[in-house]
């Protein structure tokens, strides 16, 4: 169990994480969503013992993870910028990880390299942005850590590599369940992987709930434009699409059983809402205070 209580991270006057409290049961895939500068990386850095929180507490299985050898051995934090020596060849980077990581799975790492078409003889500095991200995925997954944190590791990856990554992540998780936290801006692409979603904005917790429950926070109403207009009147419409005389409106909020009946009676089709639409709605409301700068994290 990961527990954060009143966690705050400051950089001078800038508050990156603001009195955030969360309880994360282990053995799930979490989606950590937030706009640029919302405090995602600062939060993940504290989770991974990369930095100390300014105030508040954090425990992983009941102990403070900061400088705790047992917890740090079982944590892999892969950032969008790799923490490796750029002059090293990929083979040397993997050899280093194998020497340091007790649970390192060399055979799996080799398979991932092949899957991402990474040449182990290449130097890290010569890799493209996407190839570096792929190397990050290899390091993160092959470490077989109990807590795997992947912070925007998809950067620069092409669609094929991203799809392979998502497929591999899910397969590996099903094979070896553990806690995985994925921070991403490509919400729709990864949303199906999430078991729970955490949304933060300006360092504050906006929402933490089961992904399915979150999807139930909204509904897509599709049907004749006039009927949809009448049904959604007075509701918060997150998105709207028109095709001929048909309108599909994404509405925020759960429908009561009688409302569902009324919609169906009017010939309207009800469907699920994408997490991205809900995320945009939940985080686009202007709030007091400036958004912290990305550069400070």
């Amino acid at each position: 169990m990961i527990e954060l209580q009143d966690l705050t991270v400051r950089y001078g006057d800038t508050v990156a994480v603001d009195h955030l409290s969360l309880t994360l049961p282990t053995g799930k895939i979490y989606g950590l969503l937030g706009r640029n500068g919302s405090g995602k990386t600062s939060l993940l850095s504290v989770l991974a013992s990369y930095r100390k929180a300014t105030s508040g507490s954090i425990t992983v299985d009941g102990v403070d993870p900061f400088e705790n050898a047992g917890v740090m051995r079982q944590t892999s934090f892969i950032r969008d910028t790799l923490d490796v020596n750029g002059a090293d060849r990929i083979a040397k980077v993997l050899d280093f990880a194998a020497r340091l990581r007790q649970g390192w799975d060399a055979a799996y790492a080799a398979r991932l390299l092949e899957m991402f078409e990474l040449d182990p003889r290449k130097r890290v500095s010569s890799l493209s942005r996407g190839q570096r991200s792929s190397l990050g995925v290899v390091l993160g997954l092959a470490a077989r850590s109990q807590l795997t944190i992947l912070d925007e590791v998809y950067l620069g990856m092409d669609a094929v590599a991203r799809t392979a990554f998502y497929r591999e992540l899910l397969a590996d998780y099903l094979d070896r369940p553990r806690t995985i936290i994925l921070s991403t801006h490509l919400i729709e692409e990864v949303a199906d992987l999430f078991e729970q979603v955490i949304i933060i904005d300006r360092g504050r917790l906006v929402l933490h709930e089961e992904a399915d429950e979150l999807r139930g926070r909204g509904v897509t109403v599709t049907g004749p434009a006039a009927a949809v207009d009448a049904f959604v009147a007075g509701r918060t419409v997150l998105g709207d699409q028109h095709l001929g005389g048909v309108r599909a409106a994404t509405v925020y909020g759960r429908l009561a059983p009688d409302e569902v009946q009324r919609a169906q009676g009017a010939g309207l089709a009800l469907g699920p809402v994408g997490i991205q639409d809900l995320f945009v709605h939940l985080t686009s409301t202007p709030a007091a205070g400036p958004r912290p700068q990305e550069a400070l994290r």
Partner: protein
Amino acid sequence: MSESTLVTTNLLRFYRPIGLWLGSAMIVGIGIALTAVLSVGDLRFSLWLMIVGSAAKYWLLAVGIMLTGMHLRQYVSAGVTRHEFLAGAGLFGLVTAVLFAAAVIAGHGLEQWAVGLAGPLSPDYPAIAPVTEYLHVLPVELGYLVSGTAITAGFYRFGALPGLLVLVPGMLPAAVSEALLAGGPHGESITRVLPFGFAVAVSLVVTAVGAVACHRLIRDVAIRRATG
């Protein structure tokens, strides 16, 4: 094997090929220079002490800089605590400095032997005195290593401008040991300002204080991102 021992052995593994290349290049270079100088006259100073002695301390300064600037995040990202890294890197630094100092003295002995083969030694040539020389070279090398680590730790922890404030105290171990124990114009061992024993002791104490300061700066530092 403990994690700190793993850090030491992996750092030694990382620097071994670089050290071997550097050492080989030095031996070849000094050998050629020695042959050239001896073919035209006497050698009145120790080429080895002047060139390799300097290269060794500056190389250790560079290693100190890399320990924080490059290796810290590598090891922490591989699940090593800062405390374990500091212990392992400290032992690595000590072993490296001890070996380098030994190599400097051994090289001087070889050079003196080679010069002796070509004829009588010049009165200006610094004859080898292994123990005294070693006690001159080792504290200076340790001072440079700790200074490199301290200066980078200051920038790493506080950023560019505040890090400048750590620059001056960070240079103290190198500066003090250099001022008290660095070689003379012929490469000879000279003790300045203080008697030899005091000079060694003061140099080692300042270096030890620098090492403790490095520990304080790094033990809970945030692991910064790579720049590239």
